[in-house]
């Protein structure tokens, strides 16, 4: 008895057999067994898992994307979606944060000091991912504050408020402090470093405004 060729059997994995092939398979245990093995092979191929890329793959890709101009670095307020909000909104958000009891008061009178043990102590024990999360939470805290204040203003019929650079500075000081702690945990993370640079720039701008206002007072 002549066996079916291996390529014929490979076809029969997912195509119907012709009558003579069906007849042969019913009689030939070897060919039926080989067909079963081919089907098992095909099922196993379909079940092959995904493969994790090598470590460092993202870093290399990110560098290439930047060199191609496909990644745009945004300023802090653009990242927070505040670029198109009224000018009073960032300061208003800072007021909400300040009054929210998150412990920024010390930062106003002691510029060089960290924002307090509440923000730095837990970070010391965090992983890299934990540090990144800390920065994201700080960012989200700020956005959340803006949203809350927006709701309050809308309930009161809208309108402008007086910008308070001192309280704005205090809130930004907190963001800088959290960002610095995160960068210490993950010194090579470009996102964290970019966020810190943006926060520092915004804080320094607020500090200059505070200084200018003091000069005007005296």
């Amino acid at each position, binding site marked *: 008895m002549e066996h079916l060729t*291996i390529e014929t059997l*490979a076809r029969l994995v997912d195509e119907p057999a012709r009558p003579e092939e069906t007849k042969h398979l019913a009689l030939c245990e070897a060919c039926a067994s080989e067909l079963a093995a081919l089907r098992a092979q095909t099922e196993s191929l379909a079940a092959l898992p995904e493969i994790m890329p090598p470590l460092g793959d993202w870093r290399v890709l990110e560098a290439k994307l930047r060199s191609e101009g496909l*990644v745009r670095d945004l300023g802090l307020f653009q990242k927070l979606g505040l670029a198109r909000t009224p000018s009073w909104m960032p300061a208003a958000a800072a007021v909400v944060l300040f009054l929210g009891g998150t412990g920024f008061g010390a930062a106003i009178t002691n510029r060089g000091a960290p924002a307090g043990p509440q923000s730095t102590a837990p970070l010391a024990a965090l992983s890299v991912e934990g540090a990144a999360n800390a920065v994201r939470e700080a960012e989200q805290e700020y956005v959340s504050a803006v949203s809350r204040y927006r709701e309050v203003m809308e309930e009161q019929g809208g309108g402008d408020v007086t910008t308070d650079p001192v309280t704005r500075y205090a809130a930004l000081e907190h963001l800088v402090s959290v960002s610095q702690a995160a960068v210490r945990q993950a010194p090579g993370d470009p996102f964290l470093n970019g966020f810190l640079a943006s926060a520092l720039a915004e804080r320094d701008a607020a500090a200059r405004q505070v200084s200018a206002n003091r000069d005007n007072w005296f």
Partner: protein
Amino acid sequence: MTDASAGQTERQLIRLAAEGDARAIRMLYERYAPRVYAVVRRIAADDDLAQDYTQEAWIRAIRALPTFRGDARFSTWLHRIAVNAALQSLRKADTRSKREEDEAADVPIDPWNTDSLLQKRLEQALDTLPEGMREVLILHDVEGYTHDEIGDVLGVTSGTSKSQLFKARAKMRALLSGVAGTAGEQGAEAWSI
């Protein structure tokens, strides 16, 4: 506090990534990198080449993001870009001689897992298949493409795709059973590890 990141839909992520937002691009990468790397690695059949081709695939995808209209699922759209990038890169490079010189690449697996041992045998056998057979076998049996889709991607007829597939399955069977035999010489038990 609301979790703005977790709440972002894929559509929002794609829009932000298309605008160049680094974090959105990274989130898309983290979500799809294993799937993209797997298909590119199998087509390339070489770790170093796979890394290069994967990078090329992602750059093409990010560059093309503004053209993504959502007609197909994003994963399907990205997968097609990755396959095309890998195939085109493979055509450009003179990789045949390199693979002939190299040992079959060793895909990292869990040695205590019998599924992983089977996976290792399959991956190594795939790596040693001739290029044309390997591409068709990966696209059809691993990735689930139809012969018409394979024809579009590879620029061949669906009949050619079928013919290559049957040859590839037979070659794989021979590689996995240890002999290049014909039907009847090896039974289904040879499949087991």
